[in-house]
């Protein structure tokens, strides 16, 4: 078993996991139904042929040999398809810790994509439930937008209770910001505060400085606009 460098269920760092969720099983319903249909199609065809008394000589002689080989190969491929479909369901999961969002995606038999998004970079979280089945079974998407312009926003697809997960992500995001003391920098980054101004205590200008500068129009005052009293 490979050692993951992030918390996964069953690992020593399992305690760090705040939310562990898979895609809702209903989102895989199409794939499961397709697997089921693939498995029963040959049986259904045979039953139809026997019930409706079609030419049963098709199952005799050399054709029988041929059908056995084809059916054998067909069922081997079909069970592999079912197994891969189950793997996709089971290993498409999302792990949210106090530091990051980890998305694990199983691609076919061999491929597994793992993407990690630090919570500190999260800017906006949107949850959505669209359609009949998602509304009925309460699952939907959570869109996590980051500060990066190049990177596409992360989407937690078809997760159960998306609103709850979205609010949990924002809650953890706020916690991380508080812990890291990055609130001011983030406000600056968003343009809420002018860069360089660190806190309200440092914004206070000494009164004698104000008195000395009365009557002068500085470049900063002009940039600010509005009315300026000139003595």
């Amino acid at each position, binding site marked *: 078993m490979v050692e*993951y460098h992030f918390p996964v269920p069953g690992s020593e760092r399992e305690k760090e996991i705040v939310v562990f969720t898979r895609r809702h099983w209903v989102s895989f319903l199409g794939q499961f139904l397709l697997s089921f249909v693939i498995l029963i199609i040959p049986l259904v065809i045979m039953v139809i042929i026997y019930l409706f008394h079609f030419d049963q000589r098709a199952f005799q002689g050399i*054709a029988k040999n041929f059908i056995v080989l084809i059916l054998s190969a067909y069922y081997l491929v079909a069970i592999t398809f079912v197994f891969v479909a189950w*793997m996709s369901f089971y290993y498409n999961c999302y792990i949210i810790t106090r530091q990051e969002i980890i998305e694990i995606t199983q691609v076919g038999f061999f491929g597994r994509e793992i993407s990690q998004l630090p919570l500190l970079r999260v800017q906006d979280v949107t949850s959505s439930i669209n359609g009949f089945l998602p509304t009925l079974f309460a699952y939907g998407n959570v869109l996590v937008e980051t500060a990066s312009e190049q990177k596409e926003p992360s989407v937690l697809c078809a997760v159960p209770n998306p609103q709850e997960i979205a609010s949990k992500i924002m809650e953890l995001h706020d916690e991380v910001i508080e812990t890291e003391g990055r609130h001011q920098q983030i406000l600056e980054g968003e343009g809420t505060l002018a860069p360089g101004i660190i806190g309200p205590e440092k914004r206070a200008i000494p009164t004698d400085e104000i008195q000395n500068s009365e009557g002068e129009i500085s470049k900063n005052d002009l940039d600010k606009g509005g009315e300026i009293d000139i003595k």
Partner: protein
Amino acid sequence: MYIFLILWLVFLFAYLIFNVYGLIHVMAKRFRGDAVGLVMLIYIVAMLVIIFGSISIISNLDWGRPLGELFKIR
């Protein structure tokens, strides 16, 4: 008809290699305590049932007849 039998055996060989390689990969990337072990066991059993079932049926069939019989109009 032997040609189809040989093709089936080649397919079976390739299929088994693909599965052994795939299952080793899946085993390597497991989480501890997940349900993959059980499902993999079911998968392997199903695979073996199909393979041995096919072999037992195939061994009872006559493969010496010419291929042309398949397309003969009755």
